[in-house]
């Protein structure tokens, strides 16, 4: 798909509220890239379903693949879901800080929108020991699975509340 990569990608990160997706009517279909959102792939499942319902087929990336699009200068905007906002920044889904720092480095705008409530700060470590029903790590491995992280205001262009 590299040759077909669109020039102006909008990256979605986190789990957005249903109404958020109404703004996508009129966007070129290949411009919306969504991240998986390990451990549960909740972001890809929820955001993907909402987009498909609006006849927009998103392109899915694993959580470690967004950097490639930045490096290739294909990212136009980053849209992230937040849990709560404060004068100094926002609490967002895990992975938000990666995109925020990449966006800062590449001078790309980062917009925050209200996300679906995610009450848990951490998941159980066993959630990253398997994937799609198959164990992927050795017995005895330890895991650390934060679900939320802090994004400082210096990385945020605008918050839509």
């Amino acid at each position, binding site marked *: *798909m590299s040759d077909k990569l669109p020039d102006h990608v909008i990256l979605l990160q986190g789990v957005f509220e249903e109404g958020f997706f109404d703004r996508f009517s009129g966007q070129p279909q290949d411009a919306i890239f969504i991240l998986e959102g390990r451990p549960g792939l909740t972001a890809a499942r929820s955001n993907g379903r909402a987009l498909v319902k609006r006849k927009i087929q998103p392109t899915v990336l694993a959580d470690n693949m967004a950097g490639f699009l930045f490096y290739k200068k294909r990212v136009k905007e980053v849209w992230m879901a937040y849990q709560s906002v404060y004068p100094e920044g926002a609490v967002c889904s895990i992975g938000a800080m990666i995109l925020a720092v990449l966006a800062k480095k590449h001078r790309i705008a980062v917009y925050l929108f209200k996300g679906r409530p995610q009450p848990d700060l951490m998941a159980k470590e066993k959630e990253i020991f398997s994937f799609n029903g198959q164990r992927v790590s050795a017995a005895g*491995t330890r895991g650390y699975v934060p679900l939320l992280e802090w994004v400082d205001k210096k990385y945020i262009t605008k918050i839509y509340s």
Partner: protein
Amino acid sequence: MKPFPTMRKKMRRSKNRSIKESPLFWPVHWKGDVLSVLDETLIPRRLNYIKVHTTAEAVKVIRDMKTRAFGQFLVVLNTFLLEINRHKGSEQNLVKKLEKTARALNNSRPTFPFAEVTSIVVGWARKAADDQLNVRESLIKNINGYLQGIRFRRLERVKKIASLIKNRDSILTHCNVSGELAMAARICQEEGKDIHFFATETRPYFQGSKLTAWELGRMGASVTLIADNAVASVMADGLVNKVIVGSDRSCANGDFANKIGTYPIAVLAKEFGIPFYVLTQPSNTIPRGEDIPIEIRQEKELLTFNGRATLPFKARGFYPGFDVVPHEFITESLPIDVR
């Protein structure tokens, strides 16, 4: 720094003892006339070796990612030995056969510099033929000597990595560096260093979960697995103070390509002031990172796992196999020159 409880094992033994090897350090062996290649996709469930009889089978184990990183390098060199052993014809035909083998290996995957390795062997073969030497004997001697040299330099690099790691360090690593980091961890333990590792799971093939966490654990190292999206979190929270990664291809200007996900880690490390170390194989054939051919793999490898779709709707996927990291993000390269 002591972010997580570590398994401090003061196994102070003689410094002269040999380094305990990870199966991933040298994942290709000979069983009689057949090449045995460690099937890395089955780890940690079992250690299984795939029998490789021909160049076509060698290309397949590379293309199917049964082996990767340093394993590919070993498969390439040993495939020449395989073809030399199978060859029954004239010396001149052997050179042609090896040129054909080189072309097949060069086309197996785009990002790893196969042509740089195969051109060395083909160069030896042509020179031996020109000098009217016994091509077969000359090549076997050269390839085996070359492999021994690489092995020695890798073991030396393992010691260098171990010396880079200080007491109470907490190291983030991504994907897998073919045994070297795990072996360095073992040395650190034997030296009484209290260290910890964070390994990213490395979607979509989970080399971090399956290989790195497994081999570090096997060496008795303290390791915590994290999802790929948690790398900024562990850096921002001060849980890591060094990053060590491998590389698949280097450029003349110092840029390098490594498993997808390495670029954000490098950018984050710089943002948080964390030293970023990379194990490299220097090369001058590509001037800079933008010129590295990046393999784009099939979307089904991202969108299915264990034979089932990962998402409940029809999606497109995009799966670049590698990231390019510009040299300005590197604190120090730990090179092995394989040219």
